[in-house]
């Protein structure tokens, strides 16, 4: 995790981690404590277990904890940069972190050497560590860091790094214990941070091992480990330590510990009481949230309520996260608290750290006890992890061993029952929540550990417990889900760090803020990230490096992206009759990378170095710096994105294009009439035609419209303005489609309005009694195509279709739905079109600039894989409304339709990506057609369509010049103007792999991977595709580990900061319906999603793969900000809560069975859970701020997406919940998709294999 950051983190982490760890540990401790207090522990254990999974990843999970911790530390150590980070955050966090770090370090120290661990070997330690480490790692990192980040603002980076370094977390855990002591001091900044940490890892881990381990381990190498994760903490401590780095470890730890203490205190404060308790709580699931929530934690009120127990305040955060957790925490806290009030938390944290020590043991275990490794393996297997969780319990005890309390805690964990209790706290949540039960269920899916705990406490489902109990060993494996990198944390960090400042594009090689962050862009020569996002902003200089790293080099380009109102859309540049000025050789367009020479008489191309004469009318003198005097007056010389007016040379057939046309083709077969689609479409079109896209809102749109209906024959309509009544023309000769009329089919809306309205009024009635059930499809598109051909214009077809086209006609399909093929080598055939007809048709469409948007309303299999060929090859979209019902789906459909019709769109587009010498665009993904290897042809290109371009090396790149790319899109605007949109992008080239890993963007990488994999399933068995994805990711991470991370235990999982979410996201991709379908996922759905993703931009793919889960009940009605999202895991749900889940395609409002009546009353207008209508698709409009705000949020979510998301209200325990749970992507799913924790373990294993 830390890997990337490790450098930075290293020291910092070392420190911070400790701190964090400390916290975490403390947290753990807390947990343990709870465990001690049975309940708390349980939760912690849970986390621990969860962590453990992490650890496994880390390396030998069990032992690994330590090892991981070590690794983290090492990493952090290695990453000298860590100091920097430390420097950044150092002060505050570091203070605290160090402490924990220290501990952790100590462990790590031991761990570092791995030998260390073994030496520490204290088996007990090792175990606890394991759990702790993970927990810490994950917990701390995620948890703590965030807080730090928040606090520090800047720190985030380090934080991230921290987070990345799971190991560090572990360390942290160890640290915590020290931190515990330290906590007191740390209070300052750390508080929050620490709190966060504490809540997460610390609490759980700390408790047990902290004390023991920390001391020893922290001192040693641990820091490094910690360093990594702790970076943030380190920062504080780091700055000082940073320099010392490795050596410091010991020092840092202290410092860090101190800092931690500080940190923890603060954090703990919020968490404070929580820390111990909190940690658990946080660990439980809330952790991340906790951190985030910490601030809110303040509001703890709820927590208090939840955790009346006590550590109320502290617990609060936890409570937030997971109310249930809180309780346990409370209890723990109480225990801890008892020890040190606020410190207790830290203390608790420490204890956990103490747990950390155990980690050392783990390491030790790892090293020595093969068996232990075994477990890791098992974790890797995923299966193990769950058990590990159970094991965690034991380890905890082991941990506890060291510190009496820990021991106590440990016991509780062991007690499983206790764990159960621990979760109890969570469970408490669970208890309240059915969620717990669900957890119970979830657990298995998720990291077993977490579940177990939950089970234990909440519903105390016997079975789970039972299972938990036996898997004592497993407990070790458990990884605290809070300890592993949290997407939420990363997102929040990025928001905090990058959301406020405008992003200036002029700096080469700088990664932009995440897609989830709101930011303002200043175009200073490179295209805005809204247009182009790259996987890496530092490209390896050589192809060898690129190969070695396996990091895909790709850009996700959204050429016509809509910009927020406060950013200018690209300026239009007119170079006169001779057209845009271009390089003579490579034909690149004038751009800021062109170097003017010879006094401005010539320019040298930045792409191919060719020198071209400046045409006289374009000549301008240069100033003393060699810049043209008019540089800033000309967009093409100063901006990254702009448009040229194209001359007639750029037009098809050298003719100025006609304004485009929209043609509506409506299925009027029995099904379409019966489900109401026909009536709805006709009704809506009447108003919608006033909103056709136009460039100048004051002028009427130039776009002409045409209408046709069809079943197994086609009906065209003559709506010429001069007619009193529309005329219908039936074409039955579908074998050889043609358009029966020219004049009167495509008309101007304003001129023919009366006739059109008359037509739209009559269509539903005309076919009201139809009995025709057969439809055609190929001829429908042919008809539209022919109409456009006849009118000699480009345009878009809107096809509203219901059923498999089985009528005798070209493109006739047969039902080939055969689920038995799923999972076999023939599965790929399900994604392939069943006839080649449509591919050929698509080619013709593209040649004419005929874009096809398909709206499907199927009641059964319609073969989306085949029907979607034309839309996806012409830059169109496919919308699918299965089992369409007018009442419930109308809104969604109509909104999609409105958006689709109104959105900005270009036609007949050709996109070409030029690059500077050395790299070359080699592969393209998206909805388009390519007739050669360079030109992306898009019959239509709208503002939501994205093209992903992969680059490969041709040659060696130089660090000085970097790499340039220029994306030129030639298109016809909706007013019929031919234009060229140019986006320029320059990225750095790096000779060090570390730079690559430091400046890449995981979201974009995932976007690329998803598209790549989704295309691969067309030709390869799905399993192979999944394997190769996993393999590539493992290579990426292994390469990092090998080349960039500081040396550390092989058992430690070290992730680059920028990629720490890679595993979780990748897992989401792997679990997606396309790559890993459940039994109930139809073939159509899979094909649909496959096509959908191929044109998604990064923001959409992000939320698609990792849905946004918003705790609505935490909404602050007073302010505009949204509550911090929580992670997609069932155990994060509170029975008393209401959550809004956004997948990009759907919205779910999950209502916990114990949701407050007041809340229900406010949102649903009824206080009774039972009275909520789960069929509602929109929230009742109630006059209270809560209702208003919730509806606002729903609307704002919808506004962000290109497709309207239907709102489904899911009541806990309701049937629909199954669907809902499908989107809780961190959990194991029904179809066998791995939980995050399990997958992390698996990745870890893979990486280890690669490294060994």
């Amino acid at each position, binding site marked *: 995790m830390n890997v990337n950051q490790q450098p930075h983190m290293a020291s910092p982490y070392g420190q911070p981690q400790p701190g964090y760890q400390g916290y975490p540990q403390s947290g753990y401790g807390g947990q343990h404590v709870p465990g001690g207090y049975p309940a708390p522990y349980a939760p912690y254990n849970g986390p621990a277990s969860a962590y453990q999974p992490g650890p496994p990843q880390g390396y030998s999970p069990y032992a690994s904890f330590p090892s991981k911790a070590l690794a983290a530390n090492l990493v952090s150590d290695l990453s000298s940069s860590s100091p920097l980070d430390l420097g950044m955050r150092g002060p505050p966090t570091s203070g605290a972190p160090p402490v924990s770090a220290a501990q952790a370090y100590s462990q790590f120290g031991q761990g570092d050497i791995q030998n260390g661990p073994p030496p520490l070997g204290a088996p007990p330690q090792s175990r606890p560590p394991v759990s702790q480490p993970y927990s810490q790692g994950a917990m701390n990192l995620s948890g703590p860091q965030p807080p730090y980040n928040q606090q520090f603002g800047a720190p985030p980076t380090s934080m991230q790094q921290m987070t990345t370094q799971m190991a560090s977390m572990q360390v942290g855990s160890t640290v915590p214990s020290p931190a515990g002591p330290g906590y007191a001091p740390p209070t300052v900044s750390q508080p929050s941070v620490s709190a966060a940490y504490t809540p997460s890892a610390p609490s759980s881990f700390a408790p047990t091992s902290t004390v023991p381990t920390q001391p020893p381990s922290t001192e040693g190498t641990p820091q490094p480990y910690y360093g990594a994760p702790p970076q943030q903490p380190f920062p504080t401590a780091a700055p000082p330590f940073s320099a010392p780095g490795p050596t410091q470890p010991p020092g840092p730890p202290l410092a860090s510990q101190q800092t931690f203490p500080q940190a923890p205190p603060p954090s703990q404060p919020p968490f404070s009481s929580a820390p111990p308790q909190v940690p658990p709580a946080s660990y439980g699931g809330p952790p991340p949230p906790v951190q985030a929530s910490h601030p809110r934690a303040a509001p703890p009120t709820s927590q208090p309520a939840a955790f009346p127990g006590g550590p109320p305040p502290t617990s609060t955060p936890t409570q937030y996260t997971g109310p249930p957790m809180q309780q346990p925490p409370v209890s723990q806290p109480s225990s801890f608290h008892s020890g040190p009030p606020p410190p207790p938390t830290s203390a608790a944290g420490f204890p956990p750290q103490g747990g950390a020590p155990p980690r050392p043991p783990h390491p030790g275990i790892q090293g020595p006890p093969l068996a232990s490794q075994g477990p890791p393996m098992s974790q890797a297997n995923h299966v193990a992890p769950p058990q590990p969780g159970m094991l965690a319990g034991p380890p905890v005890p082991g941990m506890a061993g060291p510190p009496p309390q820990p021991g106590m805690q440990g016991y509780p964990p062991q007690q499983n029952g206790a764990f159960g209790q621990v979760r109890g706290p969570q469970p408490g949540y669970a208890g309240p929540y059915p969620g717990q039960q669900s957890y119970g269920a979830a657990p298995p899916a998720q990291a077993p550990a977490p579940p177990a705990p939950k089970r234990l406490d909440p519903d105390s489902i016997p079975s789970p417990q039972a299972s938990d109990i036996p898997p004592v060993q497993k407990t070790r494996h458990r990884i605290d889900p809070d300890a592993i990198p949290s997407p939420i944390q990363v997102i929040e960090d990025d928001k905090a760090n990058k959301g406020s400042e405008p992003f200036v594009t002029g700096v080469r090689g700088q990664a932009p803020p995440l897609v989830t962050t709101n930011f303002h862009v200043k175009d200073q020569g490179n295209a805005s990230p809204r247009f182009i996002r790259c996987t890496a902003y530092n490209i390896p200089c050589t192809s060898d490096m690129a190969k070695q790293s396996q990091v895909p080099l790709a850009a996700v380009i959204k050429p016509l992206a809509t910009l927020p109102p406060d950013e200018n859309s690209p300026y239009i540049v007119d170079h006169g009759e001779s057209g845009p000025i271009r390089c003579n050789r490579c034909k690149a367009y004038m751009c800021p990378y062109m170097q003017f020479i010879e006094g401005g008489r010539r320019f040298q191309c930045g792409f191919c170095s060719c020198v071209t004469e400046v045409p006289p009318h374009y000549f301008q003198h240069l100033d003393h710096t060699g810049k043209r005097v008019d540089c800033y007056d000309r967009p093409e010389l100063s901006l990254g994105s702009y448009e040229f007016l194209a001359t007639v040379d750029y037009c098809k057939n050298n003719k100025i294009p006609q304004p485009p046309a929209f043609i509506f083709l409506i299925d009027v077969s029995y099904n379409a009439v019966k489900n109401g689609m026909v009536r709805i479409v006709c009704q809506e079109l009447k108003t919608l035609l006033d909103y056709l896209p136009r460039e100048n809102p004051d002028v009427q749109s130039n776009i002409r419209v045409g209408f046709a209906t069809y079943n197994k*024959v086609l*009906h*065209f*309509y003559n709506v010429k303005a001069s*007619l*009193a*009544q*529309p*005329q*219908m*023309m*039936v*074409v*039955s*000769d579908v074998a*050889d489609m*043609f358009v*029966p*009329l*020219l*004049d*009167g089919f495509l008309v101007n809306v304003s001129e023919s309005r009366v006739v059109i309205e008359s*037509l739209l009024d*009559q269509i539903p009635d*005309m076919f009201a009694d139809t009995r025709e059930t057969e439809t055609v499809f190929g001829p429908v598109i042919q008809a539209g195509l022919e109409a456009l051909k006849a009118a000699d214009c480009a345009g878009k077809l809107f096809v509203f279709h219901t059923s498999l086209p089985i009528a005798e006609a070209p493109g006739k399909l047969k039902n080939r739905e055969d689920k038995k093929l799923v999972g076999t080598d023939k599965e790929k055939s399900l994604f392939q079109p069943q006839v080649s007809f449509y591919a050929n048709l698509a080619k013709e469409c593209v040649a004419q600039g005929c874009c096809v948007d398909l709206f499907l309303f199927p009641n059964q299999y319609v073969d989306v894989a085949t029907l979607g060929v034309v839309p996806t090859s012409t830059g169109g979209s496919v919308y699918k409304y299965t089992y369409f019902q007018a009442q419930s789906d109308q809104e969604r459909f109509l909104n999609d339709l409105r958006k689709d019709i109104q959105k900005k769109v270009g036609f007949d587009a050709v996109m070409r990506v030029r690059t500077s010498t050395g790299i070359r665009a080699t592969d393209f993904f998206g909805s388009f057609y390519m007739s050669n290897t360079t030109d992306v042809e898009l019959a239509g290109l709208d503002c939501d369509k994205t093209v992903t371009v992969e680059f490969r090396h041709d040659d060696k790149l130089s660090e000085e010049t970097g790499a340039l790319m220029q994306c030129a899109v030639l298109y016809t605007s909706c007013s019929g103007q031919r234009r060229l949109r140019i986006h320029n992008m320059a990225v750095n080239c790096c000779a060090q792999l570390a730079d690559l890993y430091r400046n890449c963007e995981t979201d974009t990488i995932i976007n690329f991977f998803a598209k790549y994999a989704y295309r691969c399933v067309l030709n390869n068995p799905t399993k192979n595709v999944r394997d190769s994805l996993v393999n590539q990711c493992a290579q990426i991470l292994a390469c990092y580990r090998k080349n960039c991370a500081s040396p550390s235990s092989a058992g430690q999982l070290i992730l680059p900061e920028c990629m720490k979410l890679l595993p979780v996201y990748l897992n989401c991709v792997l679990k997606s319906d396309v790559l890993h379908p459940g039994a109930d996922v139809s073939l159509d759905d899979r094909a649909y999603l496959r096509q959908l993703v191929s044109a998604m931009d990064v923001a959409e793919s992000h939320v698609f793969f990792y849905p946004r889960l918003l705790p609505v009940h935490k909404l602050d009605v007073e302010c505009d900000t949204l509550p911090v999202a929580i992670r997609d895991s069932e155990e994060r749900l509170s029975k008393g809560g209401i959550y809004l889940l956004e997948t990009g395609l759907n919205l779910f409002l999950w209502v916990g069975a114990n949701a407050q009546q007041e809340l229900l009353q406010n949102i649903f207008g009824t206080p009774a859970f039972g009275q909520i209508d789960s069929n509602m698709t929109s929230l009742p409009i109630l006059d209270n701020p809560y209702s208003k705000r919730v509806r606002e949020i729903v609307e704002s979510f919808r506004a962000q997406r290109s497709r309207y998301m239907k709102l489904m209200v899911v009541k806990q325990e309701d049937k629909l919940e199954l669907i809902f749970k499908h989107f809780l992507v961190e959990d194991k799913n029904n179809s066998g998709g791995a939980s995050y924790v399990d997958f992390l373990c698996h990745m870890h294993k893979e990486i280890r294999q690669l490294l060994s």
Partner: protein
Amino acid sequence: MATYQDFIQQNEDRDGVRCSWNLWPSSRLEATRLVVPVSCLFTPLKERPDLPPVQYEPVLCSRASCKAVLNPLCQVDFRAKIWACNFCFQRNPFPPSYAGISEVNQPAELMPQFSTIEYIVQRGPPTPLVFLYVVDTCLEEEDLQALRESLQMSLSLLPPNALVGLITFGRMIQVHELSCEGIAKSYVFRGTKELTPKQIQEMLGLMKPAASGQQGRPLAPQDAATSCRFLQPVHKVDMNLTDLLGELQRDPWPVPQGKRPLRSTGIALSIAVGLLEGTFPNTGARVMLFMGGPPTQGPGMVVGDELKTPIRSWHDIQKDNARHMKKAIKYYEALANRAAVNGHSIDIYAFALDQTGLLEMKCLSNLTGGHIVMGDSFNTSLFKQTFQRVFSKDYNGEFHMAFGGVLEVKTSRELKVAGAIGPCVCTARPELGVGGTCQWKICSLSPSTTLALYFEVVNQHNSPIPQGGRGAIQFVTQYQHSNTQRRIRVTTIARNWADAQSQIQHIESSFDQEAAAVLMARLGVFRAESEEGPDVLRWLDRQLIRLFMFHLRRSPFLQVFNNSPDESSYYRHHFLCQDLTQSLIMIQPILYSYSFFGPPEPVLLDSSSILPDRILLMDTFFQLVIYHGETIAQWRKAGYQDMPEYENFKQLLQAPLDDAQEILQTRFPMPRYIDTEHGGSQARFLLSKVNPSQTHNNLYAWGQEAGAPILTDDVSLQVFMDHLKKLAVSSSA
């Protein structure tokens, strides 16, 4: 007995039959020596206002191979209630309903004056008439407007229960659905793709999906009648249809410079035929094709759409340069046969300045009994009145049209049918045996429709027919009257046999010169259709020696010079279906002369008749030319007719106009009416017809007398006669 002239006239008035010979040579050998075959012109539906139809079924001979109808020539044994068939000599009992028969109580069909009798029979439910308009929309706006108006007008002329349908075509073909309210619906077909009848019916939705096992079998008419959306009773849809026609637009597809509009006439017709064939087989139906130019795409195209490629001329045809002709003819023939089989007729109204492809399409009408009308523009009275006349009514207020006619010819055993020439198709091949029957289908009949029937005497020379023996021919015409009744008209004629050796004078005197001329001319035209022009002329010269053959040789029926292939086809078509009188006019136009010197008088069709102080009225059947002589023209120009003192001149001017008007009123199709004068460009119509007795070659030799010299190298009648005489007496003849 009066003269043969009277006899012939009487027979024609009663039976509508004119025989080339009214005494028949008794043996095959003799018959062949006579050169002009035993043959007759038969007008099946000759108007007989005095003939009330009888309301019962005809009595048929019981012999399966005969089935002749009881007629006045049969021997009847009133006591035994038995009659003997005069064709096969089978003795048949009278049906029970004739129980009361006796010498004094004879049924009509036994009375001699009822040698032609009409029965009204009940055969199935009455089926309404069907009129399917197939309208070309590639017209100039004013033409289209005129056509629109004519069509709208025609709706009021149709019987209210008639079914009407509309197909329009240009680049595409639209079959209009008439039953719908609100939106006007039409089915559209592209004009380039040939479709099978089954496909057409499927695409029009005429096939019930659940149609029982038999594939491609059209719906029973009654089903179709209720379900066919394309053919609706006039009274139900005339408002709709009037609107529809009013909104009829020119074909919207742009016609680039240098191109002809794309006309899918071939497919339009095949859809029309397919539609009717699927819905109303064996029901009287008219497909009325209105076209303003040649088919330019798809099967049946006559010329490509490139204007630089002119439509084929005779020259091209002779040079075998007409690319599309053979294919098109084949296509239209197949189509015509399909229509004929189902009893549907196809009219062609072709109005354009250039050719429209009648040469290729004429078979559509030829084989189905449809009309062909050709002119320059729909916006002329020629079209408007002709079209109106299609729906003219008789004294009973019924249409002058009948449908689905089947003509069966039965002969006594000495004769056999050799063939028929006219607007019909053969549905049963003539049997070679004696007394065989023969059937032709005449899908559409008018009172003037006349067939030429040719017979062969099969009696051998060595088996003489007893003196006084008579040969009989019975024509049985079943048809659907325009009031939807089914009717059968039976005409039985008999002629005496004569021994050529002993009675050659008798035979000679029984020769009907007019009938023979027309019969031979038809034969000539028929050959001309299939053979090279000069060959036919040679054949004709060898065969004939009569006066009017001079004009026939010069007529457009045989000469293609100065006529386009379309015009030739048009003239020939009419020649093949008009009755004798009209045919004679066609062969030898009538020329009347009006002057102050006396009442109008027929004058020789000779250039010598063209005098300055005469007004000439020439009727060629297709044209009606009023020619003002030089002086008259000058007077008229000077305006003398407007002066009261020259009232007589005014009357003189008016006289030919009135006469012309009279002819115009009755003639179908309306002739082209030309009012011209000496030196006028239109005078060519007259000059080309008259016998060039004075030409630029002999002008001064002949000279003084008067008349107008004709600038031609054609031989004059005198020259022709001189040659003829020489040939007639030369040994080689």
